[in-house]
């Protein structure tokens, strides 16, 4: 048994059914042995897509996606996908080959220090030169990626380690299926819950007059959706969510106020701006949701539930902290709230009434669309999809329009590149998400789609059933919007000359449509929904210069949320 076998046997034992990969010189020993193992290879056409597909798989299933690339440029092409996984806390194992051990450090052909390059963007990384270490390193990598605050783990393995034979004792242990011992004296995995401030937190929540809950990605990462819903039901507190919180609780009720932040709903931002207590659950108070920090944090108390102590008091000063997996800590708080003598909800009636009124007043899309806009396409899509369908989005205007309007009944149904905001994410992420067994719709703009358009070939060769939508407004829409609003309509390099996307899809052998008017939209979407023989594609030629509202100009307070060009929520 050589290192490559040890790698593949361990992946198989970890339950990995598919890896998203691209071959090359420094991973040939692995490719040579792959046919002997029950692991499906998805042959991407650019390594960046392998990283996003692995992420898409993780995001959709809650498992750990795996991608693999060769040394040098193969490895560096993974970098954006790894950084994206780090910023969004996505568990992922990225494996790279490197040159022979004796060539390391000699500037050999296709040698790069990928461990060094990735140092700030991984949760952990390994450089493996000894074949015998491979089983342990993989075992640790999966554990580290998934436990605690999840993230990507990089394993760089020299060609020598892939090719060398393992010690007989280790081979025997692998073949017998014995558990592999891990050796991580400094790593706790899931931290011991710290509920020392639980009573303070309960008191702050009970005494609030204008409270709001912000929940985020931590909820689905911890599998705490039911516990969050119970918390919301017990307290009756109005709630808003982050981009990655979408679907983690019932988002259709009167007090479900919408996504908050730079393109949050007017009501969500109004509630957070005027709240006397903010309960952050599995969020990290990033700049896109807080707006101007000193106004976000004024005349209010903030309590925070999180798994990472380093998040406490990072961006905002807290009045209460609950550390641990939300699925463990929320039930404790729920029980305390239920047991307490406090009359929960007695003080918040007026506040809830006000917000119900605002929600009605600032309802999105009050008028029926007359022309083909991105919003119209997105709304039609949401009407026809099933509740288990997954939607992946790219970055920019369509992403925000899609996020504002999606109220899935489950989490892990809206996949977006939140922290990194990576264009080109949607399509390859959808390829990975398709392995969850659900139908997957990939939405991109005309800019982002061209960043990974080559994945048409992957879908065809591996028959991956992604329903691919391009909303083409012939602009880099979000950048154009900023140029319009903040740079005096100076549209430098945002108008795009595009190919005939449907013809490109057809050239790859993918059935394709082009929709140019509103009345054809539903019919084509229905055709895409019914199609189950691989990928299918549609380009929608939409209105060119729509703007996304509501909008908080960068760096300003949530109180300055513009409902349109001329009106803010405080007007």
């Amino acid at each position, binding site marked *: 048994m050589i290192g490559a076998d040890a790698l593949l046997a361990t992946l198989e034992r970890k339950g990995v059914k598919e890896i998203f990969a691209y071959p090359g010189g420094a991973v040939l020993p692995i490719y040579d042995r792959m046919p002997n193992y029950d692991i499906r290879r998805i042959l991407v056409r650019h390594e960046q897509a392998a990283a996003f597909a692995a992420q898409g798989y993780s995001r959709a299933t809650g498992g750990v996606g795996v991608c693999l690339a060769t040394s040098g440029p193969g490895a560096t092409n993974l970098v954006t996908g790894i950084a994206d996984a780090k910023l969004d806390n996505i568990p992922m194992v990225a494996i790279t080959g490197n040159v022979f051990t004796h060539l390391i450090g000699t500037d050999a052909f296709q040698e790069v220090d990928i461990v060094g390059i990735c140092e700030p963007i991984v949760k952990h990384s390994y450089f493996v030169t000894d074949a015998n270490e491979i089983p342990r390193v993989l075992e640790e990598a999966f554990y580290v990626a998934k436990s605690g605050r999840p993230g990507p783990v990089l394993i760089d393995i020299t060609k020598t380690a892939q090719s060398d034979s393992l010690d007989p004792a280790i081979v025997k242990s692998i073949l017998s299926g014995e558990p592999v011992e891990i050796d991580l004296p*400094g790593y706790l995995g899931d931290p011991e819950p710290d509920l020392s401030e639980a009573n303070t937190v309960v008191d702050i929540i009970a005494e609030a007059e204008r409270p709001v809950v912000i929940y985020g990605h931590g909820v689905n990462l911890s599998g705490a959706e039911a516990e969050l819903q119970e918390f919301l039901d017990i307290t009756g507190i109005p709630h808003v969510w982050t981009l990655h919180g979408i679907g983690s609780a019932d988002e259709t009720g009167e007090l479900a106020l919408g996504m908050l932040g730079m393109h949050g709903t007017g009501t969500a931002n109004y509630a957070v701006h005027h709240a006397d207590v903010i309960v952050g659950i599995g969020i990290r108070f990033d700049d896109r949701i807080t707006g101007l920090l000193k106004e976000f944090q004024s005349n209010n108390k903030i309590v925070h539930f999180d798994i990472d102590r380093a998040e406490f008091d990072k961006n905002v000063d807290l009045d209460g902290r609950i550390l641990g997996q939300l699925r463990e800590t929320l039930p404790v708080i729920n029980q305390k709230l239920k047991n307490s003598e406090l009359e929960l909800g007695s003080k918040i009636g007026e506040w809830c009434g006000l917000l119900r009124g605002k929600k009605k007043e600032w309802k999105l899309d009050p008028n029926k669309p007359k022309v083909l806009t991105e919003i119209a396409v997105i709304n039609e899509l949401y009407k026809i999809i099933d509740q288990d369908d997954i939607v992946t989005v790219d970055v920019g205007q369509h992403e925000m329009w899609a996020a504002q309007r999606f109220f899935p009944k489950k989490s892990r149904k809206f996949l977006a590149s939140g922290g990194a905001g990576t264009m080109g994410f949607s399509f390859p992420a959808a390829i990975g998400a398709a392995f969850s067994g659900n139908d997957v719709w990939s939405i991109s703009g005309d800019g982002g789609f061209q960043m990974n358009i080559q994945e048409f070939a992957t879908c065809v060769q591996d028959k991956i059933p992604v329903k691919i939508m391009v909303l083409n407004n012939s602009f880099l829409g979000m950048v154009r919007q900023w140029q319009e609003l903040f740079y005096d309509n100076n549209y430098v390099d945002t108008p795009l000359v595009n190919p005939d996307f449907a013809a490109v899809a057809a050239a790859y052998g993918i059935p394709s449509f082009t929709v140019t008017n509103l009345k054809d939209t539903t019919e084509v979407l229905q055709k895409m929904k019914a199609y189950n023989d691989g990928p299918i594609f549609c380009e929608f030629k939409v209105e060119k210069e729509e703007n996304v509202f509501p909008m908080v100009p960068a760096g300003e307070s949530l109180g300055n949320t513009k409902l349109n060009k001329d009106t803010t929520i405080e007007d």
Partner: protein
Amino acid sequence: MEKYVILAVTENHPGVLSRMTGLLRRKMFNIDSLTVGKTTNPRISRFTIVILGNEKQARKIARNIENFIEVIEVHVMKMDEIVSREISLVRVKADSVSDPEVLFVFPGVEVKERLDGDEIELEVIDRDDQTDNFMQYLLDHDVLVEKWVRSGVIAV
């Protein structure tokens, strides 16, 4: 801004030092001093990192260090609340020392030897602020310092 000492116990792996310094760089700290060495257990290393900042910044960075997989234990303390030492090896121009007494004012200074007539070698073992003071003291007394090599602070 005050000096804070971060004491970290880590696994003795290649790359741990690089993770530490990379983190400090991207959080925009300039490292005042950093030392690392093996412990009685050769698999374990001990870092002493001195940074300039306030208590909140120091605690934040310590939490980030704690999150590294290979970091076993982290403590953060104010420099003046901790036992610390730094070693300096110093060579001064012999004929610039007009009064040999100036070399004996600071208790942490030991005059090691006269090298080939024109240089004197000193060894300073003291707190880093005292070392700074001694350096200034020599300059004030017109002693010509040829070389001054500092080890960085160690602390327990």
